[in-house]
């Protein structure tokens, strides 16, 4: 089978190069896999494979030769060793909610899914850690630790479905990362199966305190290219005593930006600061998730504080003052959990509601220095107009992490081409002002073409070399993250 060929819905999207030459999954190899995990857990029927053809980024599709669903570290190790011996590309997959195509199969390769590895192995309240398998859903972890007064801080928007293993692969963020930091901060140790099936224990108590290099930190965010994490030790935090949430509505994005800057300048450290723009507000209000935002507003800012109850009202009052001072036309404070949910609803359902007003939605992701937000948003607006596209912005204003969402119709080839061109310009803009091409969604297959905007040849070469340290065979999730190596076929890394 010739690899690197993806079935693609629309040829205007660039093709994702796959692996150089993928050997076929011969029946003997499939039989060996079945012997390890059980017959039912090796999926090869084309109609069942359909569900694995893409992840949350629907623009790309590719059919794997098989999907294997092992149950624990031992099974993953044996499965991977078999695939390694057969020279088959291996694509790890959690819940498939990623938005950059990180779990996109390699045509003819094998997907190793963590769906059955969904057990929380230990909650240790005395040491505030938990040990779990990678297939545990993010929100389920906090549910399990809540009785101990503990929770897991990183909260990507997809937390009700995405898995911890996927979060580790992507170094996922979320609204509350402003105060608490991203996934990497909360990972203490990992059990990792390397591409030849070897099991290594990375990190431990204190993570890198007993080792010269922070290999856990290096592994987190490696998007499945270094190996498969089969057990994860996470750090938990005590559940904050109280939460206060406010919503401020503005007639201009500049005013909302000023409010954010004023809140930071006032020395406040909110748990989250989120903005949705006018286009998003209108989409939300037209949906069943209407949160009562005025539809002529240009920006809605949600600010949340958490921590010791006694300090919160003072913080919120200061933040409200900042919003009014910046020209907010309306500031509301949630009085109870129900109101808090309502204030958040518009933000949390934004992506879903936009899907209702256009057939397709490209959820972009980039970070810029916070102070450049108003300027960047104005320029994104201009880019949208130039290409005749509707761009709706939802973003983590506190840390400058933007999600410009481009609405389009995939059947319209001309429009799809304009989406691609506009995306590229938005990325270039974000890098130009000192930002980067992805803040939390990862590079995957979608943003490989933008990596050269943020990395020079030397940085890319070193990243390729580091990847080969973990995966000398180049079998783990090939064709992701790094752009094609000019020296290697189809982006497969070459050892030099």
């Amino acid at each position, binding site marked *: 089978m010739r690899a690197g060929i993806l079935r693609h819905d629309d040829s205007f999207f660039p093709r994702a190069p796959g692996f150089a030459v993928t050997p076929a999954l011969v029946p003997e190899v499939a039989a060996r896999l079945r012997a390890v995990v059980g017959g039912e857990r090796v999926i090869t029927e084309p109609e069942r494979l359909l569900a694995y053809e893409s992840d949350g980024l629907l623009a790309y599709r590719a059919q794997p030769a098989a999907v294997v669903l092992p149950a624990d570290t031992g099974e993953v190790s044996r499965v991977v060793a078999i695939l390694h011996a057969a020279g088959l590309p291996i694509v790890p997959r959690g819940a498939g909610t990623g938005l950059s195509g990180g779990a996109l199969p390699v045509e003819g390769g094998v997907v190793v899914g963590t769906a059955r590895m969904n057990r929380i192995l230990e909650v240790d309240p005395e040491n505030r850690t938990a040990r779990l398998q990678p297939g545990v859903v993010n929100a389920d972890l906090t549910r399990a630790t809540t009785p101990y007064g503990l929770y897991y801080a990183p909260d990507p928007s997809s937390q009700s479905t995405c898995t911890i293993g996927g979060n580790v692969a992507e170094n996922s963020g979320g609204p509350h990362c402003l105060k608490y930091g991203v996934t990497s901060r909360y990972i203490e140790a990992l059990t990792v199966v390397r591409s030849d099936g070897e099991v290594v224990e990375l990190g431990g108590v204190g993570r*890198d305190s007993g080792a010269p290099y922070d290999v856990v930190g290096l592994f987190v965010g490696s998007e499945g290219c270094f190996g498969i994490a089969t057990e994860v030790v996470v750090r938990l935090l005590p559940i904050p005593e109280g939460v206060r949430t406010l919503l401020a509505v503005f007639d201009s994005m500049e005013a909302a930006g000023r409010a954010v800057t004023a809140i930071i300048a006032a020395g406040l450290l909110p748990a989250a600061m989120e903005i949705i723009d006018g286009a998003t507000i209108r989409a939300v209000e037209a949906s069943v998730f209407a949160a009562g935002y005025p539809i002529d507003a240009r920006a809605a800012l949600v600010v949340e504080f958490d921590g010791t109850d006694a*300090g919160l009202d003072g913080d919120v009052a200061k933040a409200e003052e900042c919003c009014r001072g910046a020209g907010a036309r309306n500031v509301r404070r949630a009085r109870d959990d129900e109101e808090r949910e309502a204030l958040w609803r518009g933000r949390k359902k934004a992506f879903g509601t936009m899907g209702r007003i256009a057939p397709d939605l490209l959820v972009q992701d980039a970070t810029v220095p916070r102070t450049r937000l108003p300027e960047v948003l104005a320029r994104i607006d201009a880019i949208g107009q130039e290409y005749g596209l509707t761009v709706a912005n939802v973003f983590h204003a506190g840390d400058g992490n933007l999600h410009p969402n481009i609405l389009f119709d995939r059947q319209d080839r001309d429009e799809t081409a304009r989406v691609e061109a506009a995306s590229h310009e938005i990325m270039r803009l974000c890098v130009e002002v000192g930002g*980067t091409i992805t*803040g939390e969604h990862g590079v995957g297959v979608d943003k490989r073409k933008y990596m050269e905007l943020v990395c020079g040849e030397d940085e890319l070469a*070193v990243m390729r070399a580091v990847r080969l340290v973990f995966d000398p065979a180049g079998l783990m999730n090939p064709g992701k993250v790094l752009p094609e190596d000019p020296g290697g076929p189809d982006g497969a890394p070459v050892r030099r």
Partner: protein
Amino acid sequence: MSARTLAALAARLGPGGLVEEPEAGVWTVAGREPVAVAFPRSAAEVASVLEHARNAGWGVVPTGAGHELCEGREPARPVVVLSTRRMQEVTVYEPADLTMTAGAGLTLGDLEARVAGEGQWLPLDPPSATTRSLGGAVARGSAGPLSPMFGAPRDLVLGLTVVIGDGRVLRVGGRVVKNVAGYDLVRLIVGSRGTLGVITSVSLRLFPRPAVDRVLVSRAGDASDLVRPGRAVATARVLPASAQIVRSEISDGSALVVRVVGAPKQVDADCAVLTGATDGALQPVDEAEARVLLDAARDAGSTGDVRIEVSVRPADVAWALDLVRELREEPASASTAGGGFACCVLSGAVRAGWRVEAPGDEAREVELSGALSDARRRLEERGGTLTLVRAPGSVLREVGVYGLGCGVAPLMRELKKTFDPEAVLCPGRLGV
């Protein structure tokens, strides 16, 4: 040949750029005097130093102010010390972004002074913080007392410029707080102790300086008596900024030092919770005493001829303190001359240092090696680690800096080879 190399280097680095045969004892690298000390002004000049040294067959040991030069194993061949002292420029400081980019040689004290005027701070507090260089603190990667709340150095660094061992200048990460573009080389470099590259510039995340900064203390003659209140703090429903059990020359006995920061009402409430959780054992102290105890908590255990860093699960700190006491061969109430210890009850990190009474006593060193190896084995059995930061040469050779598991050691070696194929940087220092 070496004279020619030094002349060429001196010419490249300009006036004040190279000191040949430096005064003994000032720039000593784990017992070995360097051939010269270089003070490059840019990443390009750092690359030149690496190139000249490589051609002459010398190693290069990067440092900022020189704090860590005594750590690790003695270099097996001649070395040049490379100080980043002449790279102190703050290139970007946007207070409203809470970020800064500065030269690696900037001292943490100068950085602090620079951001204090904007009501901000960098909660990075390794031992001797104020005189340390930013690059040195980042390369060393030591988590100070504040790290459980504000993050370890790796969580505070957004991006780096680093000249890797083969001379290539890499710009990794960026200067925004969320960035997942490519593999996380920033976290690999942070804490790599100069063995992968020379950090020349650092982009950092800053924080608003808390309105109130209060210290609560409980004192005891014997540190073991402080474990109970310490554990109560570590499992309380509020997270203090730091909580250390400490004993050093300046601590006046053993003390549990708890720091609470934030808004006035919140600090009052948190202090009440922590005092209640410890049955009143924790009490506020005045500012002067607080300052001394915070310095003690930050610095204790970072001096002495033998220095170790131990990590255990927080619930095991009582056991770890006993083990450290055995190693130091003294009852907890005895003198702390030449060292002391600090134990973070939140993370389970213990740092300890002590004096070797009879330097060069071979039998004594064999005994010490045995005790350290035994301690490491016992710690590893309970999921902990022991890092031997400093010790007499024979002890370091015997015990090793780290106790790496068999699967991980080859990975570490391969990473080192990727960045520094000819082992120019800190040759042999970490035994990797």
